[in-house]
């Protein structure tokens, strides 16, 4: 069985925070304790949506040392593939669900002397857990959180109240913007920067920090890519002797799983590298969308990350 180990949980609280974001609390069905985790970890939530099994990663936002329950916050994405809509519309109090053990691809670098957090919108969630972790460790941190407007600023009030000196909130509709250059320039040596939010923001922060001479090892980001729809294509899985049709709205990984072939994965968002698959033969073009393979590897066409990447062309043979 691929992916991290599974945990059976019950939904014990559903709290709408605003027009777009709802928080869910999970507790173990057997009443036992959940594993502790480290701030920045996510869990993959399984959703049985009609005939489709959806597996979506969500950052754990609860206290990493709290073992009685986990909480996640889900932003409704009306244009998305349906995972968030399922969470918002189908999931009811008391429902039993399957989630994965926590996996952390966005952990704090504890060698840092200071942690600088930059969040955009729902990108705030991993920082909520990291802040709780740093509270216990007495770590030094500072948060800069950009939101569309006050109504959609999930957890902004709580943060500002509990950590008035560390929290800085910016509202787009009030034309407030992070003075990124100045902010980065003023950080003491040994600061690490972490960014989670929309792609544009991640690129902006990473590029600016790099241009200002920040070492690559001090720049951390988390972006889960959702698989994008694309032209259907066919793939031959040599090791399992199966030919699989990948539909427009499913990912290559989902199609492989649908045919009962066990394929490795962890993040399902192009970030962890776990699903890396060897390409044995191909005639056509890859649509590489992951953050894992290097540009050279992408150009070489010998590997693909089936959780987010696709293929367009005549034939594709994978070692799976």
């Amino acid at each position, binding site marked *: 069985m691929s992916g991290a180990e599974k945990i059976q949980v019950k939904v014990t609280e559903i709290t709408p925070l605003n027009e777009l974001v709802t928080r869910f609390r999970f507790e173990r069905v057997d009443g036992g304790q959940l594993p502790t985790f480290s701030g920045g970890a996510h869990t993959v939530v399984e959703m049985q949506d009609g005939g489709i099994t959806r597996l979506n990663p969500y950052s754990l936002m609860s206290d990493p040392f709290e073992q009685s329950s986990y909480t996640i916050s889900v932003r409704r994405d009306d244009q998305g593939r349906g995972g968030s809509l399922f969470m918002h519309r189908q999931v009811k109090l008391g429902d039993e669900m399957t989630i994965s053990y926590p996996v952390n691809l966005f952990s704090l670098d504890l*060698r840092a002397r200071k942690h600088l957090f930059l969040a955009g919108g729902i990108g705030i969630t991993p920082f909520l857990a990291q802040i709780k972790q740093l509270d216990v460790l007495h770590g030094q941190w500072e948060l800069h959180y950009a939101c569309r407007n006050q109504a959609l600023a999930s957890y902004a009030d709580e943060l500002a109240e509990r950590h008035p000196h560390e929290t800085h909130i910016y509202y787009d509709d009030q034309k407030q913007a992070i003075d990124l250059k100045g902010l*980065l*320039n003023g950080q003491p*040596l040994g*600061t690490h920067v972490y960014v989670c939010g929309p792609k544009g923001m991640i690129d902006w922060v990473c590029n600016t920090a790099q241009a200002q*001479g920040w*070492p*690559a090892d001090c720049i951390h980001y988390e972006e889960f890519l959702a698989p994008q729809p694309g032209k259907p294509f066919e793939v031959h899985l040599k090791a399992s002797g199966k030919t699989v049709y990948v539909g427009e709205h499913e990912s290559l990984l989902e199609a492989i799983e649908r045919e009962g072939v066990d394929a490795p994965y962890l993040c399902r968002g192009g970030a962890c590298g776990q699903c890396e698959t060897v390409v044995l033969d191909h005639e056509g073009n890859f649509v590489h969308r992951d953050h894992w393979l290097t540009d050279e590897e992408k150009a070489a066409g010998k590997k693909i990350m089936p959780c987010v990447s696709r293929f367009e062309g005549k034939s594709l043979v994978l070692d799976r």
Partner: protein
Amino acid sequence: MSKFEFPKSIASRPVWGTLEFRSGEHHLMIAEAEGAEAVLDIATPDLMAKTHIIYIPRGTDYADKLRALTPAQFYEGPSYGAALPRIRRVLEDAHMGLQVYLTGTEGMMGQAMNEAMAVGLPHTAIQTEHRGSTARRMQCVHCKGITEDVEVDPFVCSHCGLNLFVRDHYSRRHAAYQGVRVDAEDHGNVPEPKGIYE
């Protein structure tokens, strides 16, 4: 001749690089002896306008040439130990974006690297270039004492007096190679010392 090609060795042995310009708001260059040549090699007026040079001559005389680059700040210290408080102060006050360049002997680079790491810079972000003497800073694995500037193998530990064999085994924490008793099994059977790279 200030450059030396170190022979290939075990994975523990540090690999030094070649200094190159990296963008950043501030630059700290620590040059020991012939290391000054590596600074002269990459100096440009733009870079120097944002650079603090700390020069430890150890018998060389590059001070005038370095001053002529008109760096933002220039300091000359008689020894690494004498320059250390200044190095610590600069690192303590520095902001992210500072680029650190170390050039000179392995012993100096290793120790200065530890200072930069102590304030939270990842070692991967610190540039180094070996120049000048190939003498090593050695730690005696028996008494833990450090002997500086070891040129021959075997050598006598300056603390406990044992005859030590110069290993390529390196400790980043101590910024030193490890010296192990050469006549441990057969006391007194000490080979004739020769240059480490002979």
